[in-house]
């Protein structure tokens, strides 16, 4: 609910012009650029993990257990002597994947349902809306905890749980957007000339609801990354020895006094990447908002 985009945002009839206006607005916003840079940085690091000259993230060393940062291990070592820096770099993959995949699940399930509700109206709409409300009223984290516990603790299951719990936002958004687009004159006339349902949805509705969904997705990735970290913190996310930032924190909280670096760096990394997605999403929203000149 933090960032549900205003449903009045609709497409501009002249795409090329609007695209250049989008870029000029986006690039004029230093916060958005900062967000973009942060996201790009972490995506690059995660992608390069296999070829970077770093330690094996699962290689243990009994003689270097919980060693403070040094030249050899810039971020120190963890509770069984693994290099924290290389676990963070590999952990970036898990955390970003968790964000992107769970949002993909939410979008792929939520958008069709939302469009269906907004397009068909009537009983279909009422039924989908009630279920959405019920899902929204069930507390997000409790839902995710119960789902993850049901499916068994693993990164995949955490992503499914987060995706399902994030779905209602997209149902609502897609429904509202669809209903708004349906009242536009050009849609009315397209219907009048007898365009079929599929064509109508494909040609007019989907392109028009794309921008707000994109904005919402960016912001929800941020929430999903935190959610994965929270589930991992409860032991329900990525399972060792594979690293993720959340599961690193889960372990680190037992060694706050002896090895504060174990908690410090993964926490900062989560903060920066989430901030990146939030700033980026926020910037996209401002740049796509036609009301605001």
């Amino acid at each position, binding site marked *: *609910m*933090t*960032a549900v985009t205003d449903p009045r945002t609709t497409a501009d009839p002249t795409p090329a012009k609007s695209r250049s206006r989008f870029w000029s607005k986006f690039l004029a*916003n*230093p*916060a958005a650029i*900062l967000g973009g840079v942060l996201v790009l940085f972490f995506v690059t690091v995660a992608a390069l993990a296999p070829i970077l000259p770093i330690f094996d993230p699962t290689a243990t060393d009994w003689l270097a257990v919980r060693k403070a940062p040094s030249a050899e291990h810039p971020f120190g070592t963890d509770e069984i002597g693994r290099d924290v820096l290389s676990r963070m770099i590999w952990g970036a993959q898990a955390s970003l994947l968790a964000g992107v995949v769970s949002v993909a699940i939410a979008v792929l399930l939520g958008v069709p349902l939302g469009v269906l509700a907004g397009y068909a109206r009537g009983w279909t709409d009422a039924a989908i809306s*009630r*279920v959405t*409300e*019920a*899902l*929204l*009223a*069930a*507390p*997000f*984290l*409790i839902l995710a*905890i*119960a*789902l993850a*516990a*049901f499916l*068994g603790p693993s990164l995949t299951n955490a992503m499914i749980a987060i995706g399902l719990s994030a779905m209602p936002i997209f149902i609502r958004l897609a429904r509202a957007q669809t209903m708004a687009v349906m009242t536009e004159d050009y849609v009315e006339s397209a219907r009048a000339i007898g365009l079929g349902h599929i064509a109508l949805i494909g040609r007019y509705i989907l392109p028009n609801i794309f921008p707000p969904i994109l904005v919402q997705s960016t912001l929800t990735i*941020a929430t999903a990354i*935190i959610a994965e*970290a*929270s589930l991992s*913190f*409860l032991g329900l996310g990525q399972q060792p020895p594979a690293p993720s930032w*959340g599961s690193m*924190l889960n372990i680190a*909280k037992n060694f*706050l*006094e002896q090895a*504060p670096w174990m*908690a410090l760096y993964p*926490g900062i990394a*989560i*903060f920066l990447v*989430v*901030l990146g997605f*939030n*700033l980026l999403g*926020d910037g996209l929203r401002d740049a796509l908002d036609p009301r*605001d000149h």
Partner: protein
Amino acid sequence: MLAFLGRRVLIAIPTIILISIFVFGMQKLLPGDPVLAMAGEERDPEVLEYLREKYRLNDPIPVQYLNWIGNALRGDLGISLRTNQPVLELIGQKLPVTIQLAVMALIIAMVIGIPAGVLSAYKKGTWIDWVANTVALSGLSVPNFWLGIMMILLVSVQLGWLPASGYRPLSEDPIQSIKTMLMPAFVLGTAIAATLMRHTRSAMLGVLKSDYVRTARAKGLSERVVLVKHALRNALVPIVTVTTLLFGELLAGAVLTEQIFTIPGFGKLVVDAVFNRDYAVVQGIVLCTGVAFIAMNILADAAYRVLNPRMKDQ
């Protein structure tokens, strides 16, 4: 107004039934039989079977559901399998704690979020705007549990300023109670301050362009008076709405924060109950928070209508 409220409450009923079916169903699908999970090291098969019969866990799931919902309607939410305490009593013990935490967090969020939103709207497009924005989004981007741990490490262990836990009820020891709640409320408050700031900013942007602000300025009133007396007062409608919704969210959303600061509220109760398969407790709490969330939604809508009579029924 009454008709509006009545209709909203009627619409809420199927939603609440759906929540209850949903939670009940999920509970039943959880692996790990509650009786076995409770048994721990004591796994006498005869006793386990007796308990399954006693708590009617062998009945078909729809029968179990009807049973539970029937009792719930009579105000009986069952007992905790772990401690034998009635669920309603547990909720009664936890609700004031969580409400206290939510109220304190909300106050902190308002103190930060509303002025930041006003300032950022007033200085729109300047560096003040985007710094305020970035700072607000930072609050939203820090994982609660990490901030909580770091604060315990710094404020409690290193500096010794505030207790890390040891919550006391407000009625018994108000000073200790507020001291123990300060850090968790801050952690939660900074997270929702961002939302509040964003909504304040956009409401203020709308109001600042309006005619009466222009008129007020034309009358030569000071900028402070214009901002606070005219603009902010008019921007309050959406702010009140969003605050009500945030309160509903906080009632259920403090799960990890309560866990970190060992605050005996809803969040801690529900996490432990899920892990212990104490299903009656989970169902009772989710039902309660669900109802609270919907009630807050209705209240928010009602507040919106009262404050903004121009709005018509959708």
